[in-house]
């Protein structure tokens, strides 16, 4: 039983990261009906920018671990968000009126561009974050020893997700985002600046992806230019699992995918971990083709 709960926490830690990345997929899809395939690479850029800023500014030396990493996270989120806005301007906006397939091809192209750009800028080798940025100490909860870092990651992910949910539900801009998600034309007629809404979406989604990249770097230590592929794929799966276009769905899908993977590895087979996770995805989609929370079409995003 202890092993079960240990695996559960393992799964939640991985799932928290999936969920954070999945939010980027789901927001963009909600408003533009576009799968932003470059999102996984924005996540990678977050990890690399984090490392560059960390080593060049030496923030953590001046203000201590926690505050340093928090300031770093804000900077990384801002920078990756700006890259997201540029991506939309350059690769997606000119194709807004074209058939949807053109935008998908453009997204794939952007993904390849980013991946190669990272490789050419930083090189193909593995990069390693400095050790012990944050204290490594296990916390005892109900007799389980859980590393503090893992709790911080999960808490930070959940906090960001709640903040996003409140932003979309309670603010004026959030209302505009929801309106644009339902019907862009009608929203424009109601005086909503749809281009501005899309810009906001392309700032928030990549910013969250970049934050996830920084978390992976700080916690796991090792980054390389292809890491966005696996994380992107899993997060995309999580977004579909929860119902793409739906923010609570992306959170639920991410956490669920992480837990299914961990438990599948624990009780069936490690080598078959991914196969089990995708099998569960297929099962859920057969029963609920719109994903777990995807049915309330009117309340998309």
């Amino acid at each position, binding site marked *: 039983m202890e092993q079960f709960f240990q695996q559960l926490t393992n799964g939640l830690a*991985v799932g928290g990261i999936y969920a954070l990345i999945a939010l980027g997929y789901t927001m963009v899809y909600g408003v533009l009906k576009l799968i932003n395939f470059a999102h996984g690479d924005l996540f990678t850029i977050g990890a690399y920018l984090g490392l560059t800023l960390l080593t060049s500014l030496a923030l953590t030396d001046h203000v201590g671990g926690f505050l340093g990493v928090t300031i770093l996270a804000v900077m990384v989120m801002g920078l990756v968000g700006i890259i997201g806005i540029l991506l939309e301007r350059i690769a997606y906006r000119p194709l807004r009126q074209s058939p949807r397939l053109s935008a998908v091809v453009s997204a794939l192209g952007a993904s390849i561009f980013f991946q190669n750009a990272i490789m050419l800028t930083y090189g193909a080798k593995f990069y390693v974050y400095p050790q012990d940025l944050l204290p490594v100490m296990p916390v005892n909860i109900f007799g389980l020893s859980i590393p503090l870092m893992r709790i911080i990651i999960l808490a930070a992910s959940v906090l960001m997700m709640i903040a996003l949910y409140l932003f979309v539900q309670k603010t004026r801009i959030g209302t505009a985002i929801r309106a644009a998600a339902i019907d862009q034309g009608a929203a424009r007629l109601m005086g909503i600046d749809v281009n501005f809404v899309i810009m906001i979406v392309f700032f928030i989604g990549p910013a969250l992806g970049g934050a996830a990249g920084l978390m992976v770097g700080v916690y796991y230590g090792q980054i390389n230019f292809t890491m966005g592929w696996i994380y992107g794929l899993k997060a995309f799966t999580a977004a579909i699992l929860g119902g793409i276009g739906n923010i609570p769905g992306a959170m639920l899908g991410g956490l669920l995918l992480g837990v299914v993977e*961990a438990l599948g590895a624990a009780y069936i087979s490690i080598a078959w971990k991914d196969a089990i996770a995708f099998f569960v995805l297929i099962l859920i989609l057969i029963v609920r083709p719109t994903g777990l929370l995807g049915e309330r079409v009117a309340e998309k995003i």
Partner: protein
Amino acid sequence: MNKIAGWIAIFCLLFAPALFAADPVKIGLMGPMTGSWASEGQEMKQVLELLADEYNQQGGVLGRKIQILTQDDGGDPRTASLAANRLVSQKIIAVVGTYGSSITEATQNIYDEAGVVQIANGSTAIRLSEKGLKNFFRTCPRDDEQGKVATATIQKLGGKKVAILHDNTSYAKGLAEESRANLKTANVEVVFFDALTPGERDYNAILTKLKGADPDFVFFTGYYPEAGLLLRQKKEMGWDVPFMGGDAVNNPTLVETAGAAAAQGFYFLSPPLPKDLDTPEAKSFVEAFTKKHGHAPKSIYPVLAGDGFRVLVEAIKATDSVEAEKISAYLKSSLKDFPGLTGTLAFDDKGDRVGEVYRVYKVDGEGQFVLEP
């Protein structure tokens, strides 16, 4: 008049060596000078040229100079077959190389049909020497050799309940299966056997399950990025079990990822690193190499190429001929305990190197790789 005599003298000086000396003995080098293994190939070239210079200063072989002809295989089978054809048309008598197994495989038949002796230096795949090619040799050990050494090492380090983890690549899976079979014959219990997915970051689920199987020794046969993460996360779990890796973890990135504290005490198998070569031949070679290039060879595989070259020269000297058949026969039957740079050298009937090449390394407190006695 004087002017003409002067010209004649100059011409005589220029052409005299070509007129009177015999043709040089041409030995090919096929290596990855470009591509992702370029550092290996370029060092192979430096090693062979250094050794050839040394022989030539002592008068060469059979009274002739040795000439090294280099071709780039690019670490790619198609480029390699072109390189092999080019070398064959340059009338080489033997070739040293190459590094990757699939690259060597693409060229084996070309050299065999041309009657050229081939001595590979980094190609460890078992099948290469199981084809019955008369003139194929290699100075590196075969993959199944590593499985045997792994079993012996696990027993020596006191493993009774062993967990084996691989990553489903053909190399790592092969080594894992080989080791499992050997451990079974040696009556060591294998309590865990499974594969992780390379390229991920979080292996906590795997480690938790691994810990549940309660092994007293873990053998990971995959590559260094995953090995580093496993060590780091194992430390974080507070699990203190001896860990060992195969020769694919031999990279400083392992220690960087894990952190020196987590990597401390990690064992791995590897052919000796150039800094740990201890024979007198090796010491003087490393010294000469350092003098010329400013540093010791960075990888062991170029040194193994050097060994291939040295046994070739030895065989040419001993048989007093440059015929492939005689050289091959000599290498297989008469060459015994040749003092190579990487230890004593001899070959079996298949052309595989006889004798142990693998060493056990352990990571110390500073993250350095230290040779276990």
